[in-house]
């Protein structure tokens, strides 16, 4: 069982993520977030559980839906919100927007606008770790939709044959835009697929932060023990539309309500902690209050920040390193 400090951290982080996205969703609807954003509300436990089991030196690559990963990795919500606003103070200097949050100082190698690309890059990070003989792992996130991209299987194969320190986490919210995974996934079983490629894999409850944490910690240990790359299929759910403002008929209101009312990762974790008397109602209120304050500040920061100086538009396309006379 998770010890009390960590248990509360899990909760704080999940609530912080929820708050960030709830506020960001509203701001996006009000036109503050150019290009929109992909809300992960409902999926917080996956991000928090995974990140808690990782070390600073581990390297991460993510997807288009990755606010939760960024926050759980400890990124500044100010620089994140500023990035959503595409401000110069954003973590990608306003160039990336919501899909390209990044923090190199945290070995968080960014989100990705291309489905499947993050996992492939994470495989490359794992190869880098291997080549540079570091003692860490790489983690690649993907959605259920990415399970049918060819690059995912090329990358899994490569990780297996080279025994790379790679953990793949499927943030399996069961839908790709409006497409239910079973409709487009031959065999329907992600774990069986991975195993047939020689990769250890397991399916877990992505709504249970503790289960996610433990599965990740186990997978990390196995990887470092040389047991090869690992895959975790974390089943979860997204509450909102694919991008902000989208509503669709591809899933029923009952289904959404069921997940929200009965399987919410935050509510369930709170009940769990309350039942075990590991937290008080006051502490919960304080956590919520702090989250509101922090995100309030993030919005203030983002609002107050300047847009990128358009004179910098052509900076850093390349570094000029190849032009030097050595």
């Amino acid at each position, binding site marked *: 069982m998770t010890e009390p400090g960590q248990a509360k951290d899990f909760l704080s982080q999940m609530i912080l993520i929820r708050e960030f996205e709830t506020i960001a969703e509203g701001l996006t609807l009000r036109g503050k977030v*150019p290009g929109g954003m992909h809300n992960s509300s409902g999926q917080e436990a996956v991000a928090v559980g995974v990140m808690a089991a990782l070390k600073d030196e581990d390297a991460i690559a993510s997807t288009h839906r990755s606010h939760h990963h960024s926050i759980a990795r400890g990124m500044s919500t100010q620089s994140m919100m500023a990035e959503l606003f595409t401000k110069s103070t954003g973590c*990608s200097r306003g160039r*990336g927007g919501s899909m390209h949050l990044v923090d190199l100082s945290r070995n968080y190698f960014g989100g990705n*606008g*291309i489905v499947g690309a993050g996992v492939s890059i994470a495989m490359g990070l794992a190869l880098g770790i291997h080549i540079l003989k570091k003692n860490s792992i790489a983690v690649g996130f993907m959605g259920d939709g990415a399970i049918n991209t060819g690059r995912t299987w090329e990358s899994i194969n490569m990780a297996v044959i080279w025994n790379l320190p790679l953990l793949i986490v499927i943030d399996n919210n069961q839908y*790709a835009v409006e497409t239910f995974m079973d409709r487009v996934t031959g065999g329907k079983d992600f774990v069986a697929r991975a195993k047939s490629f020689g990769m250890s894999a397991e399916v877990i409850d992505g709504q249970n932060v503790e289960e996610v944490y433990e599965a990740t910690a186990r997978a990390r240990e196995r990887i470092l023990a040389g047991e090869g790359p690992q895959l975790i299929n974390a089943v979860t759910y997204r509450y909102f539309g694919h991008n902000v403002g989208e509503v669709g008929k591809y899933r029923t209101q009952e289904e959404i309500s069921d997940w929200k009312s009965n399987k919410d990762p935050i509510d369930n974790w709170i009940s769990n902690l309350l039942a075990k008397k590991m937290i008080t109602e006051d502490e919960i209120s304080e956590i919520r209050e702090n989250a509101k304050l922090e995100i309030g500040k993030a919005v203030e920061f983002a609002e107050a920040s300047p847009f990128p100086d358009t004179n910098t*538009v052509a900076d850093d396309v390349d570094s000029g390193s190849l032009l030097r006379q050595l």
Partner: protein
Amino acid sequence: MTVVTYSEAWRSGLREEMNKDASIFVMGTDLQERGGHFSQVKGLAEEFGPERIRDTPISESAMVAAGVGSAMLGARPIIDLNFMDFAYGAMDEIINQAAKIRYMFGADLPLIIRATAGIALFGPQHNNSFESLFAAIPGLSVAVPYRPYDVKGLLKTSLRGSDPVIFIMHKKLTGAKGEIAGEDVFIPFGKARIAAEGSDVLIVTYGYSVEVASKAAELMKTEGVSVEVMDLRTVYPIDYEMVLQRAQDIGRVIVADEAPLFGSITGEIASTISEKLHSSLKAPVLRIGAKRVPIGANPQLVSASIPNVEDYQAAIRKVLTF
């Protein structure tokens, strides 16, 4: 004539042809319920059923390969990639397979690959410029319509043809309205049109840039300058007959688009005009294009990356000073 949006024009042409030819079908992600990311096939799944409006997994390479194979077998597939940026996952299928099959095998390949492109929001990975890449490939033809009228007419021609077509629709035009023609109007590839007549300066362009160029032309009237805007409609083939004729008549030419200038299709066109009309030109052929940058998420950066009306005006004034 009916007035519809750019997206609806696609749907209109598609519906007419699907009604006539049972071998036409469309495949892509999220087409059935959502109607595609640009509503381009909204409602058609109800009309034609899930066999002919097919939802796919996220598998661009297999999608295009499915198009290649089914087209060889005699069907008329439209592969709808939603964003052309995802075509990078299917380049072998497009360039090494689709484009070369007739040359190698003598087989018909009535395959259409449709997607939106052009510069808008969504950041670096959703704002690639593809015109010069595809136009340069022997075997491919490339439609880049500006008006709903041309969307429909070029689509209908594509659906009656037997060659692979890259059909690039501009994101920013999705909701733009305009007239469309009826059932029997087909627009051939390789025929440009004059979007605005003029006599002092010719701007050769296509897609959304027709709009920017036309605005600039309008504004230049106050300076007493008469600007002609030519809408190429297809960047392969290019209607060099019309381009060279008007370039010769007018003598001052600008070739413009919003792709990064270095390596854009404007170089092809400008160098051809310069070579063929060397002695009759009154000024060097100028080019307008984007900076050599990925497109940032921030809208100000986007605007700073691509040419705007003032850039067009400046180029017009410049070409007049020679």
